[in-house]
């Protein structure tokens, strides 16, 4: 199919993200990129696991972590993954308005998560858990902060796509863009599940 074809709900393909060669390339290339990102986070996790007890006299994980706060943030991010599924569902049904709506909800939830994370970091810093304090602090902020930077980048990306395409609706040129942005968002979510388990839950039990 051609990129600039005018489409209706009836003629819109079932997988618009893979209907053109450019779309197919984007789809595959992005999955591969996420493979590389997985190795990146795996390296960060491994280092964190090696250094998480090395507090050098600073506060330890058990003393620091605010689990209620982290739990709320986790719920926000997990829900945002669900709402981005809704957005893609509506994209496939060629319902541009509902797609924008659900991406909008996704962005709000993501921004809520990011706000809570910044607040959380700020609290930790006040308790003396600064980046330069210990190997634990350095590896904690680098792992969780790299994830946070991904969230921030994802938010900017989705908002850019929403504004850029607000007036022209869906076509086979921008459908793959929305699709890979949602893939990225899911990836961020999956990484957070591991951070919640490995950093926060394991941090509370020892």
């Amino acid at each position, binding site marked *: 199919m051609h990129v600039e074809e005018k489409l209706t709900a009836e003629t819109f393909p079932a997988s618009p993200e893979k209907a053109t060669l450019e779309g197919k390339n984007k789809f*595959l290339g992005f999955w*591969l990129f996420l493979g590389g*990102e997985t190795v*990146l986070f795996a*390296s960060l996790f491994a280092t964190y696991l090696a250094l998480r007890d090395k507090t050098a006299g600073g506060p330890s994980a058990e003393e620091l972590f605010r689990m209620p706060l982290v739990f709320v943030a986790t719920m926000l991010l997990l829900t945002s993954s669900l709402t981005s599924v809704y957005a893609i569902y509506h994209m496939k049904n060629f319902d541009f308005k509902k797609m924008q709506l659900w991406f909008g909800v996704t962005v709000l939830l993501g921004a809520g998560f990011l706000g809570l994370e910044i607040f959380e970091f700020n609290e930790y810093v006040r308790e003396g858990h600064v980046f*330069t304090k210990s190997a*634990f602090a*350095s590896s904690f902020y680098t792992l969780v902060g790299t994830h946070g930077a991904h969230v921030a980048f994802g938010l900017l990306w989705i908002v*850019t796509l929403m504004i850029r395409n607000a007036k022209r609706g869906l076509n086979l040129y921008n459908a793959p863009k929305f699709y890979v942005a949602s893939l990225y968002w899911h990836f961020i979510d999956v990484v957070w599940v591991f951070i919640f388990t490995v950093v926060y839950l394991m941090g509370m039990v020892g």
Partner: protein
Amino acid sequence: MSTVARKKSLIWDYLTTVDHKKIAILYLIAGGFFFLVGGLEALFIRIQLAKPNNDFLVGGLYNQVLTMHGTTMIFLAAMPLVFAMMNAVVPIQIGARDVAFPFLNALGFWLFFFGGVFLNLSWFLGGAPDAGWTSYASLSLESPGHGIDFYVLGLQISGFGTLIGGINFLVTIINMRAPGMTYMRMPMFTWATFVTSALILFAFPPLTVGLIFMMMDRLFGGNFYNPAGGGNTIIWEHLFWIFGHPEVYILVLPAFGIFSEIFATFSKKRLFGYSSMVFATVLIGFLGFMVWAHHMFTVGMGPIANAIFAVATMAIAVPTGIKIFNWLFTMWGGNIRFTTPMLYAVAFIPSFVMGGVTGVMNAAAAADYQYHDSYFVVAHFHYVIVGGVVFALLAGAHYWWPKMFGKMLNETLGKITFWLFFTGFHLTFFIQHFLGLMGMPRRVFTYLPGQGFETGNLISTVGAFFMAAATIVLLVNVVITTAKGQKAEADAWGDGRTLEWAVASPPPEYNFAQTPLVRGLDAFWIEKMEGKKGLTPAEPLGDIHMPNSSILPFVISLGLFIAAFGFMYRTEHSWGLAVGIIGLLITLGSMFLRSVIDDHGFHIHKEEVLEAEKGVKA
């Protein structure tokens, strides 16, 4: 919206190009330049070591030259030259009109380029990195000045470029193959590129993470590697070698691919044991990730870990041996032509096997305690990297030069280059095995008289000058060829087997007027054997869709280059932070522009294609 590309100046054309063939030339020029720089550094090292107690390059300066020789040769010479070959050949070998992501292809080049320039500017800005190309944290955290910061930031930038290139070739090979080009009909060089790209995808992120930690420790007060803050310097060694060992295969698998093409072409036979070659390539790629700790036998990981990594390392000799025998059997009974590329290929086999044998010696963990940090190791890795990778790059450059530039390199000068280089290589490095076994430590800037090292080192230095002479002859050859070389045919060597030899030399912008139909391994050879002049088309002649050129890849990379300076000087200059942020804004702003400006490419019309094809045939 169909527009014809306007006439552009040559420089602007290359700054904005997204054509894989022009990007290949950029990689070749930039990689070739850094190869000369790294080669000069090697000569300086050999001059210093020519006699005992020499004072040509002493102490810290020697450390800088040694560090930059290794770093430059691996990251800024070998990698880009491999990418030059891949870009020049792979899309055409699979019957594609371009790579999957032409824009990202250009971005990958410019990131590598600016990373390399950044790293080398350290020479003029207070001194180069001096902790060896492995930059172990226990050394590099203590290194004064900004040398190591140049290493850390420069390699991060160029590493992104390599990662992007890897993803691009994976998608290209999976999605862009011509009809009939099944996986098991892909030329060996394409297979090698495919596996190499997968290795790049999984090996470069650990390096990036290791470099980020080092950047945090050196520039932002982190404690990853600093034992005083609870850090652990061994983490760097693991991250570096989880990247570093696959990197060896990232370099040598394309070399194997290049030689596979050359052996088949100049033996006038299809490659012996093609499917076992594919299997061996994939297996080497897989095992390449399982052996990184053999660089760390003396760290103290314990006998169990050492034994596991020793056995895994030795296992790699099996698929490599399969390859060696397949090349020998390809030549067996073949109609062999000793052209320049073929000379390199034939010389590669014994040279590389010697490097492989010392590799297995090093893999024996207990024995490695003796070899570790001695010249034996230096001899070993130069036998695999020079005897494998550099021979392949020189062979590939001669082999595909007519395809890239449309002119044949002079064969007589090519053969002189080969003999000088081949002799010089063995003269330089063979003796180093014995220097190492006699106890000469690597990375030390001098030695005392009367320890029995004098003759060996002098021989080694003489050999280095042979290689320098070979390089000069090669440069002369390039100049002469460019000025008045003989024009190359499409099938420049007359015995081409793969698709790149079916298109003009150099190929038109769109590679194939009609996408070819591939009917078997060695697709072009099949057509020739059936008496046909060209390929069987898989589609009617029509308009050809092409990507637009863009300056954004250049600007995105420039932004990171500026940002790296800013963050490096942040603590001692007030402008540092501002410059760093401006650099990042340039990069992010360009990425934003790339996202919001539609880029649909343009079409070359059927009539123009017909016109261009007539010009070629006439």
